[in-house]
């Protein structure tokens, strides 16, 4: 076990940090799952951080000049390169410390933040490069399962069957025709010390995972499920409920991979049917019972596979 992690006691409702590195007053939609998750992630990380944000919802809603929601150093360069920018920041901190140009004992967590498009599609190469090179940084993917900032276009993280503006259901289409790309598994394949999935419905678990990602030396990847009322056709007040349902239906399982070893952090022994999750969202409204059944079979099979990985 990684010594930094064994020493970590974990957050509880009694010791939640008071500081809010990401200030309120941003322009996110009501019920935005990304901003909720990001707020919790930043609370876990604290203020000794440098955030490298990819273009996307979180970048847009937190930084309309002359306003900013960021109480910590923050940089946005472009869409596909948050991991590469973070690589440069991390390398600079290392050399500046060696040269006595930055306090040697002051630890700074370098954090890259991107959406599912900025991670799984356009940013995948930069992410892979940074993970492979072993930079000491945390990569947070806020996955709302489509390009929401540009008006709900499909990404490779859009789930099978979902309706988006570029995966519309029609006479020859059921909506998204491909299965969601499994980015956490891609991260695991890089042999990095820490990978986790998290959900804003389980906020202490999310904060603990982000903190652990920061504590380990080397690259860490946290994939966070983030409901999007605007893109999914759901009510803002239902976001957290939906996030919980995604976990309870095994659609978005919560787990950690520490030095290659899988740990399921919330075992689902009495799963709810995926139908319950799908029916709650406009993006899945067109799905037939046959397709819902197909999704159920796939979700069951993937969860079984995950359980087997955890037994290894």
């Amino acid at each position, binding site marked *: 076990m990684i010594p930094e992690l064994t020493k970590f006691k974990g957050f509880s409702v009694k010791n939640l940090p008071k500081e809010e590195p990401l200030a309120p007053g941003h322009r996110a939609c009501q019920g935005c799952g990304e901003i909720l998750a990001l707020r919790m992630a930043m609370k876990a990380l604290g203020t000794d951080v440098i955030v490298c944000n990819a273009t996307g919802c979180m970048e847009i809603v937190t930084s*309309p000049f002359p306003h900013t929601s960021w109480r910590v150093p923050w940089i946005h360069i472009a869409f596909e390169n948050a991991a590469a920018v973070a690589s440069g920041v991390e390398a*600079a901190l290392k050399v500046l410390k060696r*040269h006595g140009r930055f306090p040697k004992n002051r630890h700074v967590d370098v954090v890259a933040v991107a959406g599912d498009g900025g991670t799984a599609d356009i940013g995948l190469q930069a992410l892979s*490069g940074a993970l492979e090179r072993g930079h000491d940084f945390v990569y947070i993917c806020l996955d709302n399962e489509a390009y929401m900032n540009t008006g709900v276009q499909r990404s490779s993280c859009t789930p099978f069957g979902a309706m988006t503006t570029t995966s519309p259901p029609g006479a020859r289409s059921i909506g998204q025709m491909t299965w969601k790309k499994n980015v956490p598994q891609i991260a695991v394949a890089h042999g990095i010390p820490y990978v986790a999935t998290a959900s804003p419905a389980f906020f202490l678990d999310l904060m603990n995972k982000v903190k652990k990602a920061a504590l380990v030396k080397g690259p860490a990847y946290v994939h966070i499920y983030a409901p999007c009322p605007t893109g999914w056709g759901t009510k803002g007040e239902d976001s957290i409920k939906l996030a919980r349902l995604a976990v309870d239906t095994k659609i978005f399982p919560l787990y950690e991979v520490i030095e290659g070893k899988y740990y399921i952090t919330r075992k689902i022994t009495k799963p709810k049917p995926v139908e319950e999750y799908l029916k709650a969202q406009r993006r899945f409204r067109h799905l037939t019972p046959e397709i819902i059944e197909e999704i159920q079979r796939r979700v069951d099979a993937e969860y079984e596979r995950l359980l087997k990985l955890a037994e290894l």
Partner: protein
Amino acid sequence: MGKKVAKEVSIAIADAVKLARAEVIAAYPITPQTHIVEHLSELVANGELDAEYITVESEHSAISASLGAVATGARTFTSTSSQGLALMHEILFIAPALRLPVVMVVANRALSAPISIWNDHSDIMAQRDIGWIQLWAENGQEAVDLVIQAFRIAEDRNVMFPTIVNIDGFTLSHVIEPVILPEQEEVDAFLPPFRPKYKLDPRKPLTMGPVGVPEIYFEAKKAQDEAFKNSRKVILRVWKDWANRFGREYHPVETYRLEDAEIALLINGSLAETAMTAVDKMREQGKKVGLIRFRLWRPFPIQEFRKAVAGLKVLGVIDRALTPGGVGGPLGTEVRAALYNAARRPRVVNFIAGLGGRDITVEDFEEMADRAAFYMKKRPKEAYETIGVRES
């Protein structure tokens, strides 16, 4: 004063980066830039240069990581060529807008297709509007000097703009030349450590790269342009200081035997050396021919340029890049625009030569000077002429 040594120019450039005490290098290999970054890797590996070398997975990440590093306050260097520069294109615009003064050497090479590893200027000419300070070296000594100067210029608090030093791929990057590498103490006295006013530091948080809504975008771009134009004062001051310390002079527009010339050729980069030989030969024949090259290409040195060409009858501008379907090569088009409202201006004839490693010989330069002389009395019909292309 350093000793004169024979060195491959790429190696000398890497040594200059070391003398400048670069702290972060992020680079991806591409011919003909490779010898520069290979030697830098060696210098880092054997501890001669205490820097972080990031072996990025693409040029896009090379420039992205460079911006992250320089934003954090580290002196940062990168280098590329051709397709690599084209891949960086998107990010190149962001560096000057965020005032992130990275220094980059571009070993100029043709763009695909057909794929060509050989020298011309089509890579850099496609990047004229990125907002970087752009300098050109003619020989190894200039390359070494310009790289060290580039850090001082770029990082000056009154400048804070990224800077490119152009060197011709192969014809300059891979040749062995006599160069004087300044002593470390001399460089240290000339180039202070990089201390930016604004950087990513948890002790003093700031937001870098925010959204520019329509109410602010235009003002931000105008402010950038004004600051960019003002960088020329610092550039001239740095060159004056360099001349005082090292005895080698640098000017925004470099001229050769131009005093009483009626005709001049204009070419950027290392082939200006061949052009000088041609000028000498033509001078011996009594032809009043001179030579001009841009040292500073961005910001465009319009005053110095207009002054240099004022007495000429014809100016033959040699482009080493093509603007398909355009009204001339990039250099020719811009020079014409720069002179259009000038009180005194020569006729401008535009040649396209030396694409994709095609040699431009002394005879080619003579031919172009003769063509230029021919147009002294007659307006050229075509927007440009190509030189040295087989017709069948």
